[in-house]
């Protein structure tokens, strides 16, 4: 092949540019740590990165909201523990005063305490977390129980997403646990009746109240375990979401991040290639008849 000057210069330029380009590419990858910056760098990986990042955000959001739900359930559990203690006290009183050895006066003296327990129950049932009532179903701003012990909330259970597309319960229905909705015992009415029975020295009424409070305690225990189960589910969801995040982040890193070792050796290789190109270019271009005779034509 006949080699002309322009050919030599063109090729010198081309090879130097190509070697510089690959060195720059290796340098970019190494310094940014990213293998995929533009979709064109690796279309499949770029698409997957977008999708996995969305997954990570989704997992994060699920973990965050599940954590908030757990906090709320903890408050609910605390409230239920307090109510269990109150009901136990009422239950103790019922056992005590169902004994025929107590007279009308003694029984009547205990009535105000039962009245207080009733009022404390109402106060606890109206617990608010972050400005909303936790025992009113979906009706955040409705005070669930009035002074007479009537329920004004609804029967919905609050639900949140615990895994993509899966909903889990995050609330406990006090309409069931306390008001006996769906075939249980109305504990609040039982407390009221107990108070009346004590005032009226009604031994039968006290015995009925004792039985109702017994059931009420069981209802409360059931509600607490259901809340605990929900908490467990949510904790599992949080762990799963966190594990999912870790896994997805790992996948993203595999897809997107530079393999430092490979990139370093590529950079070294590109550096050598560029150096070699520059050396060769210098040597090739220095060969000319023009320089053979001190810069003048060889005559």
């Amino acid at each position: 092949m006949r080699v002309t000057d322009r050919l030599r210069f063109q090729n010198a330029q081309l090879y130097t540019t190509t070697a510089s380009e690959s060195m720059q590419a290796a340098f970019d990858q190494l310094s940014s740590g990213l293998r995929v910056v533009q979709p064109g760098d690796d279309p499949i990986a770029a698409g997957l990165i977008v999708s996995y990042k969305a997954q990570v955000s989704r997992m994060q959001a699920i973990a965050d909201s599940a954590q908030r739900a757990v906090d709320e359930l903890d408050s609910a559990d605390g409230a239920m523990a307090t109510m269990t203690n109150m009901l136990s006290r009422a239950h103790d009183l019922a056992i005590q005063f169902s004994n025929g050895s107590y007279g009308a006066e003694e029984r009547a003296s205990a009535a105000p305490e039962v009245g207080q327990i009733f009022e404390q129950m109402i106060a606890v049932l109206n617990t608010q977390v972050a400005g909303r009532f936790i025992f009113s179903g979906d009706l955040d701003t409705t005070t669930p129980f009035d002074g007479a012990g009537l329920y004004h909330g609804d029967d919905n259970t609050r639900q949140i997403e615990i895994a993509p597309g899966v909903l889990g319960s995050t609330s406990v229905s006090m309409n069931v646990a306390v008001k006996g909705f769906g075939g249980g015992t109305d504990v609040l009415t039982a407390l009221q009746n107990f108070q009346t029975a004590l005032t009226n020295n009604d031994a039968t009424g006290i015995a009925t109240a004792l039985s109702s409070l017994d059931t009420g305690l069981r209802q409360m225990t059931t509600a607490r375990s259901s809340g605990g189960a929900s908490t467990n589910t949510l904790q599992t969801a949080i762990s799963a979401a966190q594990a999912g995040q870790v896994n997805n982040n790992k996948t993203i890193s595999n897809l997107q991040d530079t393999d430092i070792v490979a990139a370093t050796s590529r950079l070294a290789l590109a550096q050598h290639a560029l150096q070699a190109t520059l050396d060769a270019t210098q040597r090739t271009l220095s060969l000319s008849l023009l320089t053979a005779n001190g810069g003048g034509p060889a005559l």
Partner: protein
Amino acid sequence: MPDLLAILSNSANSLYAATAMVDIAGNNMDNVNTPGYSRQRVNLASVVPLEVVGGQYYGGGVAIQSIQQSRDNFLESQLPSVFSQHSQYSTQANTLNGLTALNPDQVGNLSNTLSAFYAAARALSQNPGDSGLRQTFVSATQSLATSFNNTSNAIEYSRTATDSQISADATKITTLAANMADLNRRIGMARGTGGEPNDLLDQRQAVQDQLEQLTGATPIVNGNGDISMAMSNGVMLVTGDTSSTLSVRADVTNRGHYVVQYTQPDGSGPYDITLAGGEIGGLIGARDGALNTASTNLDSMAFDFATSVNTIHAAGFALDGTTGRNLFTGLPATSPGAAALVAINAAILANPNLVGAASAAIKVPGDATQLNSLVGTESTNLTTSGKTPAATMQSMVASYGSSVQAASAISSQAKAMHTQLTNMRESVSGVSIDEELITMTKAQRAYQAVAHVITTTNHMLDTLMALK
């Protein structure tokens, strides 16, 4: 018997030949970097003696037979398609690479704001009455709408940027086509007078190369040596010594982007044409290909997403008990333009209490049922794409990336071919300074030798004249 005066006259011709060799070598070196220049060579031939003198043929010296260009027609006939392909795909790859809005790591890109929107909706589902969470949800919604707008604008900006290049290219092509027609005419005239107009041929070659790069037009050589240029769709850009004119027109059916038109040499037209080759073809291909697909997909996604979210949101009740309010407004009746126009409902932006977070008036401020339906759209397939919003983004990014990668791959392949062929052409037609220096030295030596012949002949004539 040889004639002393004839020797002198032959020597004069020989000096002339040597001078011509230096002249052409000089011209070659002058044009060592001229694009399209083909090196020239002086073809010498010995003059055949016409008569026999004393029973012998005595040579008649040297004559310049021709001044010839070094060209390889076979090689040159392969160049047009390579020129066209190289500039078409490198232009396309560069144009497509210029768009950064779909980069997976771009700050505030669509997939990030989409995720943020759903995260805010989830947080709100925890406590729909919380004014802070409502405000966060409204801000996330606004960011998402803005992100749709920005992505759409970035794509549209890339498309518009190609328009100015297309328009500039059309002007350049028109000028070059007129040049080429003029050169055809001048070459025809020069050939009529006898000699080969090498420099005009070089100029025409340079113009032809540029036209091939710009339009992908292929040369057609006709019987009288004119070169006409036909574009990929059969439209004649140059016919002999006449040329067509290219212009652009805003096409309302393509969002006002330019369509190229041509006017025939006789003034008829302009007619719309589709150009697929060369730089202008690459620009149009990028604009109406991958960029247009990305823009259309984005519009569909914005339209489907906003519509499905609106349907759910409109069923919800705001803090004041009102209902039927869309979360996103500004949507056109059909998807085109949706991504650029989608916006958060101004009333909701001004008053986050209007977010429809409750599934019934009685459930105000809100319940998880309503917000979970809203969050559910993250897992619901969009109408057009048949995929979830995140998967739609994924396929959009991957499909755009594939187009960029394909254009880049063809571009580097064409670049290699281009380098190979131009190197081969340069090898045949290019000027080597070393070679020219040697030619010059060769001519100089011949000149010196002939000068000696003249001196010797002169001495002989002197001797003759001194005879008494």
